[in-house]
């Protein structure tokens, strides 16, 4: 029994030496294990992995109002588009004839919903497609931004967006009670700094 215990201890000793070495090799960055890496993708998955055809159901939900009334809600795909470099916001105040700008803060591009659409439904569609609610760029690299001083300009932030169009329907015991067309726009991984000219 003592011999068996000794063998077990020797085995554990060897194992305790080899495991960290193996872990270091597999990660290749043992020196940085203590650091916290912050994702720049705030929540969801981008870019969109799209497999659905137009006309297919993006989201559906069935619930009961009382014991007799069955409510069916669904959002049907009516098409989508990739939007390039959509203006998000200005990062500088007034228009100026500046020769350069500096950038030193984070910026966030957020999702939006077409006016009149139910935000809860829109959010359900967004989640079902695995789309990001927002995307934040962080200040980690120094950037010198030249500008044409002959014209008034502002520094701005832009992002690529994915627009998902859908048709929403609500039926109570099979009878259509509400419907509308809507869209959501969600930021993708691509963000930009752009000097906008007046």
């Amino acid at each position, binding site marked *: 029994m*003592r011999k068996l*215990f*000794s063998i077990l*201890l*020797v085995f*554990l*000793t060897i194992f*305790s*030496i*080899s*495991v*960290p*070495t193996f872990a*270091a090799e597999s990660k290749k*960055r*043992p*020196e*940085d294990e*203590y*650091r*916290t*890496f*912050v994702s*720049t993708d705030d929540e969801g998955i981008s870019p969109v992995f799209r497999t659905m055809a137009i006309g297919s159901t993006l989201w559906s939900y069935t619930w009961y109002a009382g014991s007799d009334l069955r409510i069916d809600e669904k959002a049907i795909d009516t098409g989508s588009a990739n939007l390039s*470099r959509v203006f998000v916001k200005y990062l500088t105040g007034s228009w100026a004839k500046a020769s*350069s700008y500096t*950038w*030193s*803060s*984070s910026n966030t591009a957020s999702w939006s919903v077409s006016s009149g659409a139910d935000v809860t439904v829109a959010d359900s569609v967004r989640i079902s497609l695995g789309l990001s609610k927002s995307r934040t*760029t*962080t*200040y*980690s*690299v*120094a*950037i*010198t*931004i*030249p*500008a*044409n001083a002959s*014209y008034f300009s502002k520094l701005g932030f*832009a992002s690529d967006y994915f627009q998902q169009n859908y048709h929403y329907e609500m039926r109570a015991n099979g009878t259509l009670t509400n419907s509308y067309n809507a869209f959501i726009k969600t930021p993708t*991984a*691509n*963000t*930009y*700094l*752009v*000097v*906008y*000219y007046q």
Partner: protein
Amino acid sequence: MKRIIFILLSAFLLLPLGSCSKNNESLPNDFFIWMNGYIAAPVNSIHTFSLTYYYDINSKHLIKDNISRISWFGIEDKIYITDFYIDEMDLENYWGYDAYSVALKLSFPAEGIYHCNSLRIELTDGSDFIYPLGDLNFDIDLPEPVNPVIDTWGSPVASSNSQEFVYDYKLLNDDSKIYMIKYDFNNQIVNENGINPYNTVDINMNGSPVFYCKSKIVVEKNGNRLLSYGQGSYCGALDLSGDDVVQSRSHARIIQQ
């Protein structure tokens, strides 16, 4: 029982050896963010662009007020650094480092192709240090025409995608077309029938997390080919990750060796 105690003691003594890493010992604690680049510019022009210096505040590092001169290692007589501006960066993603932005005012006295991958930094006490940056290719060519033929100011100046160069140019004459855009030392797009003035092209980063691209453009107007230049774009600079910082640190060590 003595044997068991001996084995247990051996295990505890040997345990720390197992977690030691040779890599950790030789990595630099101050380094520049790895940035490859292609910088095309007209001869005798001036251009300012920035580098990013990361340092561990608890280790030996540069003090900005002690820096007396900065030059390109090996091409100091070809590409001048006429001035520099160093500021502390208020990093939002801390990653254990502090950082300086190092803005370099460049001038280009002679036409030619110049390669450089390191920066020489001289201190007020007379000492100097060589810091690896990345593969930078300078392409200094003819001046632009007096009357501009293309507006390049509306292009993105920085982006999060390190795999793409996004350009958005505007031709200033209806009878002109873009014949060529050179966006990397080894890559260009050429089309006799004209190139789309706004588009995205894939770039080969060769591992660097950030790529600086200041493009060279050839515009064809009335049968003449005229040179123009982009304003510069930091591809990948808006989405630097912790992995990118680690890669930059490792890259600095490899170059230093």
